[in-house]
């Protein structure tokens, strides 16, 4: 901070305090109180235990922590909690943020350097906060002749589509935002929207390099959606249901599907790398050939939104891999059935099954994300014709092989209802 501090004057200090108090009073009386009365009048307050939760009850409960447990217990059953916090957006965004930081450190160690070091006291932990603040403070430059509506709308569509898929992923039994019977199909339907967004945004940028990048993004994503869906199809054959929770339940009853259909798991992994535009498949953003591909004209928060969406998509695809092939939340129970906390009795909100499921799911997802980050340090970028050749010819053939293996397992009576390996 290179500003000259002004001389301290007591009178001015008192004056500024009074000014502050004045403004607080104005806002509270003119805005806060009417808002409070509207809420109290129109919004139905939930009953906690056997009392209606009025603000006065809420304030008294806050003072005594042991009495906030019923509030938290009620909160966990609402939809808002599920959407915004736990299996929903906050969880995904936190994992995405940790992913970004871990990626930078992980890659740095592979490349014989250190990575972020200075932001934050411990090894650059606050680097993301610094980056976010920097991106917010930058000017968003819209190129002349660009389609303004699409230019502003496309990044928002990108993040919301990525977040929409988060809604379908089950983290623990019963903990999923949207439990649809055709969950897997819905996931692929929403994922199919991404090439359109890339193309719209590159077209709206009105510039040559984004145009080339958008075309490449379109070709790449569409080419790899088919092996993507086909490799998931083998899992559907083995488990007999499209519901994601049902797939995990089928794996809980027998063994993890990756042992039965490893080739499909491999193809799914490669296709998800292509969908995410990660190296070695990052042609749409190939830096040395087409500046930044379809992201060339993004600046400031638009770039931040797209990066956030991209990393949330990474979480989604890694979580999907875990759900389909690695058994979802299966794992040995490491939480005790009852927990005795010293002061507060948290038994109403303590659910060992859910906690155990979350732990194993997070660990497995994180391991899968690390596996997706790994090729960035190893491979160069692939060329578009090799990419399309691989996507359309080789991967589809491999998925068919595994589909036949899956069908053979079902009809041979090894898996499926009443099979040999079903516990």
């Amino acid at each position: 901070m290179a500003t000259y501090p002004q001389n301290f004057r007591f009178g001015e200090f008192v004056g500024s305090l009074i000014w502050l108090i004045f403004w607080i009073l104005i806002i509270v009386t003119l805005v806060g109180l009417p808002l409070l009365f509207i809420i109290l009048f129109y919004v139905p307050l939930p009953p906690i235990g056997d009392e209606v939760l009025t603000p006065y009850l809420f304030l008294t409960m806050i003072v005594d922590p042991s009495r906030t447990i019923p509030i938290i217990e009620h909160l966990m059953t609402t939809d808002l909690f599920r959407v915004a916090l736990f299996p929903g957006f906050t969880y995904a965004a936190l994992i995405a943020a940790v992913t970004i930081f871990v990626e930078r450190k992980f890659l740095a160690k592979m490349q014989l350097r250190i990575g972020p070091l200075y932001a934050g006291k411990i090894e650059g932990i606050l680097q993301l906060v610094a980056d976010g603040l920097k991106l917010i403070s930058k000017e968003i430059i819209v190129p002349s002749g660009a389609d303004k509506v699409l230019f502003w709308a496309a990044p928002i569509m990108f993040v919301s589509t990525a977040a929409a898929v988060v809604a379908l992923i089950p983290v623990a039994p019963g903990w999923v935002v949207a439990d649809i019977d055709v969950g897997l199909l819905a996931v692929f339907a929403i994922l199919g929207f991404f090439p359109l967004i890339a193309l719209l945004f590159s077209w709206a940028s009105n510039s040559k390099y984004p145009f080339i990048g958008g075309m490449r993004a379109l070709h790449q994503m569409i080419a790899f959606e088919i092996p993507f869906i086909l490799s998931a199809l083998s899992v559907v054959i083995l488990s007999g249901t499209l519901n994601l929770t049902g797939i995990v339940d089928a794996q809980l009853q027998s063994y993890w599907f990756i042992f039965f259909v490893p080739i499909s798991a491999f193809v799914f992994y490669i296709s998800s790398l292509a969908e995410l535009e990660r190296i070695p498949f990052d042609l749409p953003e190939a830096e040395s050939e087409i500046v930044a591909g379809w992201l060339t004209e993004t600046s400031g928060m638009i770039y931040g939104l797209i990066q956030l969406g991209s990393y949330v998509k990474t979480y989604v695809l890694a979580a999907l891999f875990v759900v389909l092939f690695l058994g979802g939340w299966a794992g040995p129970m490491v939480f005790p059935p009852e927990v005795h906390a010293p002061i507060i009795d948290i038994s109403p909100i303590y659910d060992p099954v859910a906690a155990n499921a979350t732990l194993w799911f997070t660990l497995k997802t994180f391991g899968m994300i690390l596996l997706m980050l790994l090729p960035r340090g190893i491979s160069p970028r692939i060329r578009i014709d090799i990419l399309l050749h691989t996507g359309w010819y080789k991967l589809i053939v491999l998925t068919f092989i595994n589909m036949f293996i899956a069908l053979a397992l079902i009809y041979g009576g090894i898996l499926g209802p009443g099979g040999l390996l079903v516990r």
Partner: protein
Amino acid sequence: MTSVEDKFEESKKLGLQIVKESEEDRLMTLSVGPQHPGSGHFRFTIKVDGDYIVYCDPDPGYVHRGEEKMCEYRNVIQNIPHLERPVIHDSSNITYSYSLAVEELVGIEVPRRGQFIRAIASELNRQVYTLYWLAIYGIFLGHSTMFMWPMGDRELFIDLLEALTGARVTHAYNIPGGVRNDMPDGFKDRCMRQVRYFEKRLKEYEDIFYNNPLFRQRTEGVAVLSKEDAIKLGVTGSVVRASGIPYDIRKAEPYDIYNEIDFKVQYMKTGDCFARSYVPFLDMKESCHIIEQLLDKMPQSGEVRAKLQPNPKGPPGEAYRRVESGRGALGYYIVSDGTPKPYRVKISVGSFRNMLALPYLLVGQKLADMPAVYWSLNYWPVEADR
């Protein structure tokens, strides 16, 4: 592949055709300009039909500073600092050639220890430049690890050069008559240790980069420069060695003490991008051997610089000497008219000669190959502009 002339005419016809009849708006003109992460400070305009490049026109001159003109205003010793600027990290080679030409004009004899130290500095600079080139080649293909590792190893060499000359880059070390100062104590052991460590690192480079199947897929068979075309286009350095012609000035016309050093000229016969990217790597390996031999055979003591008058001048005449630098044959043509300031200095740089291969090779390639082909020609834009 048709001959050079046919390819040129074909591509020029296509380019001119579209400029004249613009109703067929199929071609897209891209300016891979000075502000492009894929080109350095160099602009070339390409016309793209779908994914294939049909026309390429290099346009250097972004960093043109008039080196040759500036040489005529300074005497021969004062020319050294600004002559290094075209290639700042390979600076000992670009002044080596100049020093050789001036010594021939003026008639100076360089003492033996000075010759050895000059050769050591030249080889170290060749390693530094080739590592930088390799790093940028990695990042052009999207391989970020191959960008970081050579840059890290390069720092060790730059530290050595800093101990020897006093500056990290732009050393101003070679002067007509020898080198400026002697080696510090302990430099020999340090250099040997560093070279041995680096030879082990080169094996790792080979594993992660040259044996990487994706890299091989992208560069093998791409943009083949046949032997006849290479001779006709007059390319030099690693480009001509990758097309099957084992021409290295250190072997063909040995200067200083290179006739006492035993090394092999590395060359490959295929002439595609992979060969052009592998030959500098082999050169680096060979350079390690050369450094070890130089350090062993160096005389223990002696002068490193010949005594010169304050303004060295020689009889009127001219001289043309060449040196093998990281990019190819770097030749100096100096005309002197008896005054301390040279009358005309012409620098024939490898990059300028290799630039001719760029439009020839890029026509018909895919757009995605453009960085791979462009950088494999070992082109340093600042040097070509002088």
